[in-house]
């Protein structure tokens, strides 16, 4: 018996891992997974490394920017070259500072319109998979972030917090096929759910055939899901198709926010949103 176990230990462990992962998946899908002992440790361990990596990326981008700038002024004479380099570097720095300033001011202004209790956070990690769209924030339960909070930017809806550790939080983006945001068409007040889709970008689901939805219509959050504050821009309708059958029409949406380019976000609590409304 022991010899058999020893001989087949790799196979047996593999089968055990497969069954165990199915058990975890089944429990997690039903919402019965009580504790995740490994996830928070992983997130805590990776947090400083991810912050470091993000900073390195930012530095590399700066260096690349400097290189591009240098190449542009290669034909200038030596005296002017030095001067231009100085000015360019200064200008780049100022532009970056100005852009950051503008972004943060917008965020601050936007924050004042939101219910109290919203938290400003920076994106420190991105999705590790092609199939799922999420990112990691540098704020966690210690900063007041809890699971289920809405994540927004001054431009529009970004996603929802799905997991939290003391110093970081995982955000399921609006572009993920598993996400859903209750919205209304601003012009006709028709309702639907904006959700990601792997095959055709972001779509508006469950918009009835009889509802008035047209290309160019703006979609705003309805507030009925009690997660996102009412009136935030989710996106714009880019394509409407009504087949000769079916209950719903097919609507494609261009999101207001490009989650892959976002750097800072606001995390808004559902309770505060409800209280304000």
């Amino acid at each position, binding site marked *: 018996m022991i010899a058999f176990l020893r001989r087949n*230990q*790799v*196979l047996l*462990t*593999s*089968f055990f*891992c*497969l069954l*165990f*992962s*199915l*058990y*975890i*998946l*089944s*429990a*997690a*899908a039903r919402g019965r*997974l009580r504790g*995740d002992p*490994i*996830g928070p440790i*992983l*997130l805590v*361990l*990776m947090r400083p*490394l*991810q912050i470091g*990596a*993000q900073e390195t*990326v930012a530095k590399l981008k700066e260096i690349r920017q400097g290189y591009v700038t240098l190449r542009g002024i290669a034909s200038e004479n030596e005296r002017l070259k030095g001067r231009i380099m100085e000015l360019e570097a200064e200008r780049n720095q100022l532009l970056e500072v100005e852009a950051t300033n503008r972004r943060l001011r917008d965020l601050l202004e936007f924050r004042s319109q939101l219910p109290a209790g919203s938290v400003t956070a920076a994106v420190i*990690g*991105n*999705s*590790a*998979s*092609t*199939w*799922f769209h*999420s990112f*990691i924030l540098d704020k966690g339960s210690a900063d007041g972030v809890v699971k289920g909070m809405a994540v927004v930017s001054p431009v529009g809806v970004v996603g929802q917090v*799905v*997991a939290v550790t003391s110093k970081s939080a*995982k955000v*399921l983006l609006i572009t*993920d*096929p*598993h996400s859903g945001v209750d919205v209304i068409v601003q012009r006709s007040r028709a309702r639907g759910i904006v*959700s990601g*889709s*792997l*095959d*055709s970008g972001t779509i508006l*689901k469950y918009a009835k055939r009889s509802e008035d939805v047209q290309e160019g219509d703006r979609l705003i959050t309805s507030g009925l899901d009690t997660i996102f504050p009412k009136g935030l821009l989710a996106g714009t309708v880019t394509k409407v198709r009504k087949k000769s059958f079916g209950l719903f029409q097919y609507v494609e949406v261009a999101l207001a926010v490009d989650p*892959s380019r976002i750097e800072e976000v606001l995390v808004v609590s559902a309770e505060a949103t409800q209280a304000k409304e």
Partner: protein
Amino acid sequence: MKLSLLFLLVGFLVVLLQTTFLHLLPLGPIVPDLILVLCVYWGLNHPTVGAVLGSFLLGYSVDVFSSPVLGLNAFAMSLVFLAAYLSSRCIWIHNPLLSAAVVFFASWIKGAALILVGSLFLAAEGLWIGVLKYIFLEALVAAMLAPWVFSLLRRGQSYLEEVRMPL
């Protein structure tokens, strides 16, 4: 012990790369799956109980950072390891091209596992269309990376084995 430490470090590094730098590559939505390549390497060249658990943990870490539910990628990576391990028992794979081919097929196995288990446990519309849309490119990118990653890992492994067994 040293080898286990090396693989632990490599696993950690691969997860870090996959969550930070790799999405910056100009490959559209495709994120090069180094984790898959590492699991295949373990299945082919280092089939131990520790490697099985390592593959499970790597998949689990992808779930922690990306997946909406835990267990999906843990299942897929355990399956990839098992497939690589079983294939290493049938054929002798020590050629870069052949290892790239194994990684290519392992990527399809991962995609199939995601579709199958995802459709059983998750209510995501169009998941299988999405997987089919990207799986070829993802498999191709992983297969192209495989010979380089395999060569690096083999060098590290043989160096440590030489240190462990002096003449």
